[in-house]
């Protein structure tokens, strides 16, 4: 049994590959009920009247696209369905292409027009300073949008002078930007916000969820899948639940098998660490 403890890692890689490919090829569906933190984001957007201003911050780059882009697409479907005006921006220079692609592709489905129904402000450096600038005056923080249009002339930004005029903000983050938005934006300028993040940083967001500094949270691909189900647009994230479920089960089985081998082989006697 001891030889199983040092199994060739290529065998594990092959097992993971087979699990992912197999679950993508075999068509079966799993129930994805919405959890309360995701439902709260949905309910908030559902409560916004047509013409309300929704700011979506695409704070991620291609390395986190697989988890966060489906969230962006599902949120945009919901906003454009409801006639909410969308303001896009990013704190990440690698996020501009993804944000532009998401905004334009979903807007075209609902015949929403750039400048009138949505705008993309693009990337600006500064992080916390940019948030504070936007809180004081959004037009001086972004003098021009991503395409070089003067932001004071954009109809979609009419009635928005600062972050105080934003009806709802969702930050999709692969880093620390959720904390930045909360500390320097939400707390100072008093707007409601939700968050979407990669599964890795999801656990770190629970204190903010509990303190209601964010009203909802989408964590990882499952959070995106739940939102897709809520907006009745099952797509990439929902499909991803199959390989993710199978891979999670495989990893659990591997861990259990490794522990059985660990105890049956007697390795625990030699490897047990002394208690401090």
């Amino acid at each position, binding site marked *: 049994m001891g030889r199983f403890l040092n199994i060739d890692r290529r065998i594990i890689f092959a097992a993971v590959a087979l699990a992912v490919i197999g679950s993508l090829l075999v068509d079966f569906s799993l129930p994805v009920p919405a959890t309360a933190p995701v439902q709260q984001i949905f309910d908030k957007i559902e409560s916004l009247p047509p013409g309300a201003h929704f700011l979506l911050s695409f704070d991620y780059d291609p390395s986190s696209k697989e988890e966060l882009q489906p969230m962006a697409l599902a949120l945009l479907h919901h906003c454009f369905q409801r006639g909410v005006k969308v303001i896009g921006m990013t704190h990440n220079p690698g996020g501009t292409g993804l944000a532009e692609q998401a905004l334009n592709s979903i807007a075209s489905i609902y015949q929403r027009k750039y400048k009138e129904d949505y705008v993309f402000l693009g990337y600006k450096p*500064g992080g916390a300073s940019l948030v504070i600038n936007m809180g004081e005056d959004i037009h*001086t923080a972004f003098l021009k949008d991503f395409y070089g249009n003067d932001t004071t002339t954009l109809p979609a930004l009419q009635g928005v002078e600062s972050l105080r005029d934003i009806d709802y903000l969702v930050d999709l983050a692969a880093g620390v930007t959720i904390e930045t938005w909360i500390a320097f934006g939400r707390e100072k300028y008093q707007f409601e916000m939700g968050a979407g993040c990669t599964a890795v940083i999801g*656990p*770190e967001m629970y204190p903010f969820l509990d303190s209601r500094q964010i009203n909802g949270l989408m964590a990882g691909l499952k959070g995106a899948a739940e939102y897709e189900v809520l907006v009745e647009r099952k797509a990439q994230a929902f499909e991803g*639940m199959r390989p993710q479920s199978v891979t999670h089960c495989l990893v659990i089985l591997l861990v259990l098998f*490794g*522990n059985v081998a660990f105890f049956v082989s007697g390795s625990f006697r030699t490897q047990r660490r002394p208690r401090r």
Partner: protein
Amino acid sequence: MSFLRRTVPLAIAFTVGVLMAFQYFVPHPHSKAFLELMTRWDRIIAGFAVFIGIYSLFHLHWTRIRRKAAGWGYSIFVFLGAGITIAFGLYNGGEAFWHDKKEDTMFDWLFLYVQVPAGATIFSILAFFMASAAYRTFRARTVESTVLLIAAIIVMLGRVPVGALISPYIPVVADWIMGVPNLAAKRGILLGVSLGAIATSIKIIFGVERQYLGGGD
């Protein structure tokens, strides 16, 4: 020289630090104008950090190539990738870079069909390494590691739809783990980090912490 290198930066840090701390509590128009001015300066400085980052990256990889360090061939791709991307970014689809950004240019193509798949590939490779690492290291050696192991299995199952199919209690227990013990630990860490950041800020403002001046002291 010491005056310019030490006294002036310390005086600037003290003055701006104290003013910014008080500014938060003073809702006067002059206070707000000061805040806007300072944050705009900060953003300009942050913009220049990009150039320092590029210089640092190129310098590191040029040194690796020059010294023929292990894996120096990969460093060539840094120059190739950055050079091609920068060139197409400046070319801006036939219009020069000082014009507004054109759509559907070669720069966009490089982003969508090179950077996006490359980034996604690197990210997805993590799943393979995590599976291998979990198999090798997740052992119930002690009571603490056994508790961690059980919690991890419940959360892993609770975070995918299959968990609810096995038992409706798994997502409930997973949510409890995330919302109570995890929350308590994260909040403790958050408070500790925040208090540490405040203490460090005060030390910088009052000139006790001088590491940021560089060059040793």
